[in-house]
């Protein structure tokens, strides 16, 4: 049964090493697009907390606002109202310069379409976050090798993305997201563009990474993928409407079905 978010019962897996406060805290997030009569309310008063070492999945029908939420959590977008903080520091009101620094140092991203640079080899793509932040490749010599090994692509370092399968590309992208040891990895439909076998491999990899201590928040459509999360948060019409523990695909499917079924007739069309 989906229940309303309850911070005290939400944490599964390793707690944040005795930290007094959660890793990520979003409070009363509101975001609208457009203006006047055509304004679309993507998020209304959303609260979310993520503890260190957690894998949180956000699910919801199309247009539920889940992508907008991910953008704001990842410092890719700013809320109209509300606050969001990581390690107790707010970043919803920062200037572009600080947001840029945050993206490079605090967050890692995994995209639905992988977003590897087609002209760079797998190893170079993994190295990219260091390069865009002006670091020298030599510092990451062993890190790149070990990350590629970690995602099972140790022998494909010099391959271009076009020479890799979709699943392999997404594994390169995960290695890339982990390069600079981000506090939080955000994944946008990481299995959305993969067949079920490759999707499964990618999800097991993400799960393993979380088990090693990494915190991940992902948006997904796929109940199978969501089931590997510690926690699944449901979003509809820009509001959090429920949450279940992960671990059981059937439970997630049931919960998701209930969320979709309870959509009011002629629900306001929302869009992200």
């Amino acid at each position, binding site marked *: 049964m989906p229940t309303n978010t309850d911070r005290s019962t939400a944490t599964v897996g390793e707690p944040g090493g005795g930290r007094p406060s959660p890793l990520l805290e979003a409070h009363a997030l509101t975001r609208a697009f457009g203006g006047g009569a055509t304004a679309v309310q993507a998020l209304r008063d959303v609260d979310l907390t993520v503890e260190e070492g957690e894998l949180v999945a956000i699910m919801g029908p199309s247009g539920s606002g889940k992508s907008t939420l991910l953008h704001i959590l990842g410092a890719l977008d700013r809320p109209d109202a509300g606050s969001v903080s990581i390690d107790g520091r707010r970043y919803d009101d920062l200037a572009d310069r600080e947001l840029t620094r945050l993206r490079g*140092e605090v967050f890692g991203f995994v*995209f639905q379409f992988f977003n590897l640079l087609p*002209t*760079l080899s797998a190893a170079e793509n993994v*190295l990219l976050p260091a390069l865009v932040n002006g670091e*020298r490749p030599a510092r990451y010599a062993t890190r790149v090798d070990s990350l590629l090994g970690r995602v099972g692509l140790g022998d494909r*370092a010099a391959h271009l993305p076009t020479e890799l399968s979709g699943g392999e590309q997404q594994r390169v992208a995960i290695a890339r997201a982990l390069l600079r040891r981000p506090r939080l990895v955000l994944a*946008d439909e990481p299995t959305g563009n993969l067949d079920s076998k490759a999707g499964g491999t990618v999800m097991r990899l993400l799960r393993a990474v979380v088990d090693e201590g990494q915190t991940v928040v992902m948006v997904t459509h796929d109940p199978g993928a969501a089931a590997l999360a510690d926690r699944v948060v449901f979003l509809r019409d820009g509001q959090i409407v429920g949450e279940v523990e992960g671990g059981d695909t059937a439970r997630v499917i049931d919960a998701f079905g209930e969320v979709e079924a309870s959509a009011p007739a002629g629900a306001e069309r929302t869009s992200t």
Partner: protein
Amino acid sequence: MTAPAHPEGVRLHSFAGLGGRSLRARPLRSGLTAAGIVLGVGMAFGVLVLVATIHSSFEGLFNAIYGNTSVVVTGKSSIGEVPQRTLVQVRRVEGVKAASGQVMGLFRVVGTEGEAQTGSSSTLFVAGSNLRGPNTSGATVVEGTKPRGPHQIELEEGWARSHGLSPGDTIRLATPTGEATLRVSGVFRFETALDLGGYGTAAAPLGSVRRMTGKATGWDEISVIAASGVSDQELSRRIRAAVGPGVEVATPAAKGEEVNDAMSSLDIVLYFFSGMAIFVSVFLILNSFNMTVLQRIRELGTLRALGASRGRIAVSVLGEALILAIPGCALGLALGIGLAELLAAAMRSFFGLPIASLDVTAGAIVGSVAIGLLATAAGALYPSLRAGRIAPVRALTGAVGNERRPGWRRALLGVVLFLPGMAIGGLFWFSNASGTTTAAIVGVGSTLTMFVGMVLLAPFLVMPLIDLLSWPVRTLMPSEGRLATDSLRMNPLRTSATAAALVVTLSVVVVNATMSASFLGSISAQLDAHFARDLTVQPVGYSSYGPPVSAIDPSLQSQIAALPAVGTVTPERIVYMRKLPGSTEPGLLEAVDPRRWPLVDKTEYEGASTARAMAGLGGGGAVVGKGFADATGLAVGDTVTLRGAGGVVRAPIVATTDTFEANGNLVMVSLATMRRAYGIASDSTLAITAVSPARRVALGRQVSALLARRYPGFEAVSNAEVKKQYEDAVNQQFSFFDAIVGIAVIVGLLGIINTLSMAVIERTREIGVLRALGGSRWRIRRTMLTESLLISLAGSLVGIAIGLLVGIVWIISVRESTLVGLSLEIPTSMLIAIAALGVLIGALAAILPARRAANLDPLKALTYE
């Protein structure tokens, strides 16, 4: 591996290396962009080298022929002759070590068939002086001896060698007094190397040159050598005080400076055309990088999401452009040398300038590379900033929506920038205002701003035209028609930017064509209206405007007068002056015999009847052109003061005339007045009528026979041939500039290829669908060709329309200001040719993109993301 600890599979050393990868990933676009830079830099470098060469040619000339000379004494503005007595006066000045009087002649070499040869390499500049006098040039004999007798000549080494002449050989020259055969006594060499682009120099005894030129007394030039301890400037001052007004006293350096100044308006024109090529390349770079940025929105958004700052993204895109600029500049320099070589050759043959071999200076190289880098940076700046502004969220969402539509602010700014150039540009290019540097800056500046205005206005003109042209295409072939027109119409800014390069360049060609057609038509009409002569005798290759050509000895006039078919023969003496009396403008001083002139010329004068105007000339008055009157503010009743070496003559203006000669910068006096002021007594041309219209054919035969027998340096031309020569001269000048514009047209062509290949990439999936549904490769090709033709045709038509508008307004403004008789002629056939050129450009531009589209693998195209 340069860095030892690089991770495996990593060859990038820094973020900057991404730029190179990205360029290599789009070879066609990178190549086209670099080609734009190559052409821009090539044009800039070519023109800089050419200008430097023109100036150093004259410097070299002055250094060589005045090697030992401290001061040069000539008639005012180097016109006319200095009286015999001036040499005596100069020699008496304290501080003069020696002075040598010289008489010059410019003769053509006579070939084995007895005909005068044309072309600069057959032109020999002969200085006559007392060869036992002081050596003012500093030349030394390297083979043979100095001329010892009246029929001997000494040739400059380089020219002699290139003509295969050595001491003992003979050379035949066409001179004003008839053909002369001379023996080469020796070969000399100047102290500094002399390269006149083919023109030759020679020395001969004074008496010999006097006989050949028919100049019995006076000096063309007196070269003075200073005594030691006297500075050139001081000596100039003393001589000036001794010889009085009307005589020009200058150091060789000052003379060189003066010639350089006279060339500066040509420099400005050349700079303008290279500026235009650079302008168009900036445009190509801008467009090309804009497309690259649009195409890479997701990629750039990803980099932003990974923590790249705005600045880093902007710098990396700018860096990509500059990487291209490096090979672009290098190849541009090579192209520039080739262009300069071609332009120099064209200037030798079109304008008869003595241009040496190319003078490539470090300054020109550095300047052109700097221009190339700046142009690249200027073109890539906006796309770079735009790339930096891409939101990181684009990593997930990709590009959204269409580009924005051009707004009214753009239209307004376009009109504001366009109008001044349209209103006043013509006055600079085709009227009197070209003289001063300020006028040149205003003229060139307003013309260039006018181009910017055209670019801003382009979307408002090109897009409706494309909509209009699309309609039949879509009706005739619904599926490909839509495919062909959609991307053009969805991206109005890109489409119109692509077409704008053609609009700008073709409008220049149209303005050129309209102006030249109108000038030619008007000149031709004026010649018809004024010429009452049947025949003109003139030196071979004669042009009233430009460097002096050998004049006609008066004895020829009397010989022609004695021919049975001749009714009247009367001379016209024309001197080109770098500054007309009382004016700052260059122009022509013309002298005629007032009693006979109306018999060969039926010009109607303003302010007086022909009879009264001629009586006025006979009484020492002057008739002036409208251009001159406008420039100086002088009118009938005012006085023109002619200051020559012979004396000062105050000539009251008795009438004005509306003429195209020298844009109306004309002062006309009697033969006697000209002789009194400037000492000129030889004729430029002879105007001849037959005793009766029935004897015209006989007249031509008799005169030609006389010339062929004794005067190979002259030719008899009919009125139709005179017109033809004017036409050729005008056409040559305009086609010279059209050729330069051609470079910019090529840049425009590259721009279309660029846009089309972008359109192919954008519609890869759509093309895949078409192919999967059974569309043939030919069908795909036709789609691309249609798109290309639409864009080039729209660009050409708008270019033609704007060109015509500007041409017409310029003609009206020039007519209002100076050339009242200028009538508008629309060069219809030329316009059709330009439209055809536009279609050709469209077809050429489609080749590569069409092949690329047709060769797409349908399967891959369908899954393309």
